């Protein structure tokens, strides 16, 4: 937001690009859960575009992005976050927009600041991103440009280097002061907090998925479902995904034609999907676990409806699992 405004201040036309990787924290999470949010349900990128008065191109790169997640050439950060490869990929994809979507632009700008992030925003990584993305010296970082060699837009005089900045380090105080100068009283979450791959619990869930399937791969639905509900794996070959509130139950219900699913019949309770290849015995175990999360958890016996992907249903009577029977290690991600 700041980087774009800095360049706009020089009278340059700017358009925004926002990429959907499937791992975005905002969006799906706020859309799914029913909890009362004080913050409005907004897409931050769109909100920023409106504040700046620029067009925003929202691009789905979720399929191509798999290769970045599965085979990062520069490795992962603290969790499964391939931040450096991600930046290279996104700048490269932005360049592709000029070819595929016929967008006409002279250079690409990002809001990176040297030293802001330990893995991807270091002095040494800046030229790597520029080179490996193919942008080379058409990649301008207005917020830290004074700490870097002049880029093509600066050398050609398209951008006045004297009006760019030399921010560096982890402190965001200079950015906040600049935001205040521009009159921005509200701004989106700082970089890094917007990707589930930086989250330890989520990364553990993704590793669990790969281990259970004996394959480092995923589909979009897989990574969406990892954001939702309690994931409980009582046996290596299957897990339950249990909704935690109404919004999640409704979202999970959209997958009923893809998974065997369970719901407690005679008490209010959540919906559960079974991911994997559960046997009849496993389904009974799953029903007992699910019953534990229903309002019938104190009952001696209750009925659970089991429905197959083809819509066949049957009721089974089970005893809700006692708290001490539910192994802590079954909770995926923790």
């Amino acid at each position: 937001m700041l980087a774009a405004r800095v360049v706009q201040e020089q009278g340059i036309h700017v358009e925004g690009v926002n990429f959907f990787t499937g791992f975005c924290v905002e969006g799906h999470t706020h859309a799914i859960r029913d909890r009362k949010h004080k913050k409005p349900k907004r897409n931050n990128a769109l909100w920023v575009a409106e504040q700046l008065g620029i067009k925003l191109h929202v691009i789905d790169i979720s399929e191509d992005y798999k290769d970045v997640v599965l085979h990062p050439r520069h490795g992962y950060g603290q969790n499964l976050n391939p931040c450096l490869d991600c930046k290279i990929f996104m700048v490269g994809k932005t360049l592709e927009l000029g070819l595929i979507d016929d967008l006409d632009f002279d250079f690409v700008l990002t809001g990176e600041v040297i030293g802001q992030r330990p893995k991807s925003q270091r002095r040494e990584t800046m030229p790597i991103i520029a080179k490996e993305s193919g942008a080379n010296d058409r990649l301008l970082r207005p917020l830290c440009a004074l700490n870097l060699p002049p880029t093509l837009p600066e050398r050609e005089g398209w951008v006045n280097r004297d009006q760019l900045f030399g921010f560096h380090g982890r402190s965001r105080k200079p950015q906040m002061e600049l935001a205040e100068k521009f009159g921005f009283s509200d701004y989106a979450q700082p970089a890094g907090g917007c990707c589930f791959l930086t989250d330890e619990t989520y990364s553990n869930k993704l590793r669990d998925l790969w281990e259970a399937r004996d394959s480092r791969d995923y589909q979009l639905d897989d990574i969406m479902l990892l954001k939702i509900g309690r994931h409980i794996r009582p046996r290596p070959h299957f897990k339950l995904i249990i909704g935690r509130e109404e919004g999640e139950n409704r979202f999970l219900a959209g997958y009923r034609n893809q998974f065997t699913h369970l719901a407690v019949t005679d008490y209010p309770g959540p919906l559960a999907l079974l991911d994997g290849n559960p046997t009849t015995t496993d389904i009974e175990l799953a029903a007992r676990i699910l019953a534990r999360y229903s309002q019938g958890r104190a009952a001696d016996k209750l009925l659970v409806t089991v429905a197959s992907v083809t819509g066949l249903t049957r009721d089974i009577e089970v005893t809700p699992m006692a708290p001490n029977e539910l192994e802590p290690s079954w909770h995926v991600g923790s």
Partner: protein
Amino acid sequence: MSAPNQPLKIVDVRGLLCPLPVIRMQERVKQLTPGTILKVLATDPGSLEDIPAWCRVHGHTVLETRHENHDIQLVIRVSG
């Protein structure tokens, strides 16, 4: 509401969550000529904020918004 002789186009993004409704609508709008009326069918409550916001930044006009239970409908006039 719709211009005379202007057939209504529909994009169905029900079941998709933010930002996919915007992405699918954006892809559809690119195929349409200025003045076309597009109806968006959605279920994600975020669409009520995001689709009008996307229309505003791209100059398209939201003609109508409906939200009943979990069903959302927005009618848009594509700009030039």
